[in-house]
Structures are given as C-alpha cells and as structure tokens.
C-alpha cells in the first residue's frame, strides 16, 4: 500500500472515530503525527493532497481544543 492510500485510511479512521472530547483530540493528534510521517514517502504529485489532508486534521484539533 502506498503512502497516499495509507494516509486516506488513517484520515477515514479519524473522521469516523466515535471518540469525543479529550479522547477525540488524542485520536486526531495521533493521526496528525502518523500522516505527517507518511509525507516524505508520498509521491511528489500526491504530497500536496496529503498535506492538505493533515491541515484538515490540524484545523479540527484547533476547533476541538477551543
């Protein structure tokens, strides 16, 4: 499985997670880290999509934390 597909899988898991509150923030933080680790392995033309995916996770963390 390539890095982009794995990032998609991680994103889906996070988005459909049933966790709430602090537990949800922890899930999102873990996903942020794991998708971030995949960026160097992603094909150059897919890297922007992975980075935007992670931006979406980051934005959700920012919202959850307020």
């Amino acid at each position, binding site marked *: 499985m390539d890095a982009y597909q794995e990032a998609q899988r991680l994103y889906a898991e996070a988005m459909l997670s049933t966790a709430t509150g602090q537990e949800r923030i922890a899930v999102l933080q873990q996903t942020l880290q794991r998708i971030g680790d995949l960026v160097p392995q992603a094909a150059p033309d897919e890297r922007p999509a992975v980075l*935007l995916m992670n931006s979406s996770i980051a934005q959700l963390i920012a919202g959850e934390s307020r």
Partner: protein
Amino acid sequence: MNGMPERGEEILPGTWEYQWFASVVTKTEEFAGRPSHWNGRLYDQPGAIAGVIEADGSMTISREHVLDPARPGYTEGHSLTHDERYAAGGATRMAVFRARASLSALGDDTGPGASPIGSLEDIALESALADRFTSTYGGRIAESLTEQDLPVDSFPAFPAYTTATDRLMSSLSRPTDLGPGELRDLLESTDRSQRFNVIADRVIETQLGDRVPESHRDQLRQDLTGSLRRGLSGLTMTEWSQLTHQGSKLNWGHDAAELTAIEFDLNLEDIKAHYDSWNTKHPGVEPPELPDSLRETFLDREEGMRQVWAERGWPAQQPVAGREQENYDGLRTQIYPNEREQEIAKLQQFLWSHTAPSQHTDSAAGAGERPNNVREIGSTRKGQRGVE
C-alpha cells in the same frame, strides 16, 4: 498547547514570502468576489501541515512545504528544473486552497437545521467547494503572478465530494431558479453552518412562495435538505476508501448525486402538491403542516435510496430514523467475502456506532422527529474558524 505543533515565527510584511502569500489571497478574493477573513498576520507552520486558520483570524503557512517550494516558480528569469516546476505548482495549489478556506465564514451552528461545523455533511460540501475553486482558478491565479508555466491543475483532491456537488449544482438549478454558478456563489457566500438551509429557503421562496406559513419553514427545511445532507455525508466512506480507484470515486459521486436529486425532486413535488391542493380547496385558509402519511412516504423513499446504494455496492447511507435496529440486525448477518466489502462493513460499523439511538440523548429515533443524519464530531462545539 493542544497537541498541534506550535506555530512558528511570524512572517513579516515586506518579506518575499509574505508578499507572495498575500498576493495569492488577494487574487483569490478577486476571483471569488468575496473578502477573506484573514487578519493579515502570517506565521510559519511547522510539521507536515500546509497551514491552518487560527481563531484570531491569523493564518499559518508552511515555509518548508509551501513557501520555499513556491519561490523558484515566482522568481523572474529563473530556469526551472522539472522537479522545481512541479513542486512550485503543488505549493501554489496548497496556497490557493488555504486562501480559499479563509473566505468561508462558519456562522452559528447551533440553530435549527444548522450543519455542525466539522460534521460529515459540512466537511463534504466545504471540501467540494474549495476543491472546485482551486481547480478552476488555481492555474489562473498562478498565471497572474508569474510568467512561469506551473502545473497547478490536478485530479480533484476530493473526487467523490466534488463530482457529487458539481452534479447537485446542476440538478438544483431548476428548483432554485439559479444557474449552477449562481447557486455555487450563493453557497460560497453563505456561512458554512447555513448552506443547506439557504438551499431550502431559496426553493421554498421560488417554488412555494407565500403559500407556506412561516411556522412551517423549519420543518420544510429539514424535509427538503435531508436528501442532500445524506447524499453528501454518505459519500464519506467512498471518499476515504483506500481500496476504491479514484476514477470509481468520481463515478459514484456522480451517480449518488443523481439519486439524491431524484429524491429531492420527488419530495419537493409532494410538498408542492400538498400546499397547492389545500390552496385550491380552501383559498385564504392557512394550510396545515404536511400529513404524517407524507412523512412516512419520505421515510420509505429514504429507505429505497439506501437500498439502491447497497445494491450498487455502497451501503453507506445511514439507517432511516426509527428503523435503525432492523438495519443493524441485517448488517450482522451479512457475509463479507472480500477485502473491499470488509472495508465497507468496517466503515459502516463506525457510522452505526455513532448514529445509533443509544448513542444520543437527542437522537431522532422517532419517525416524526428530525432525522439525525449528521455526525457531530465534538460534544461542545463552539464557533471557530475552520476549514476542511
């Protein structure tokens, strides 16, 4: 500290980086015809993140992944290598996407019929609108800022969401009496939390006019937008499936939107018939709300759509309100012989576990209540600047 990498140093006006990103935002505003909510403060974004919008209206943008790769593409006279050209194109795409995100207002997501910010329906629609904007204008924005030929256009970042939304813009043209572009502009300029409501309001105004008492509006909004919310949020499994080819996501997004449009049109025709019939028989008398029999018809129709999705291989629609247990019992007896079906089943269980009546104190389990077809990510959501 919220677990995000702390934002980095401020990128000051007068630097190339600030001037370039500000130019991207300005061009984005020009093409969109709407102002950005960015307050003008820009910070470096550490980590593997393109950028975010902070609560105070400031923005972060990655120096490593966006600003530095972009620069060669905007340096006059620089002879770009192949890798530099594609890196600059990708960086421009990210910058435009983030700039477009700064144009969206969130609004109050706690009122009747509002879409919770971060719900699946909200993420689907906002992602689709941003994706289409970036693919439409990203190249033109780059052309307006550099002589270099940068490959900004690409396959949609969200093929299912974006194709479905494109299709729905066309389908909703007739009932809203707006062109697809006009309808898209209306949604883009509406707070994210109110975008589905504004479609319903426009349809009520155009198709039903003063035949509808104002007290009926909230319920009619739900009756009209239920199919749209389910149609888009139900694509989440498709969009994020790791086993589905990107082209198949485009096709299913298109097909799902056609089904959604059919359900929307049928429900609208029934609603119009109710008010027209009453008005003919009782001119001048305020009409009653839709009868229970018609609401049961809506639920049957919703159930029918779920069946069609399932038969096409995407049993992604959530259970019909009031009929969840029957649906769940069916899931447990199914056999999933291959990896793809196992993936779908797993994702479906995620949705079930979040939408089952026992998970909500305010669940719309009863047939007469509002279908709970959105997923709230946080239990204590506040207004925020956020973009997906």
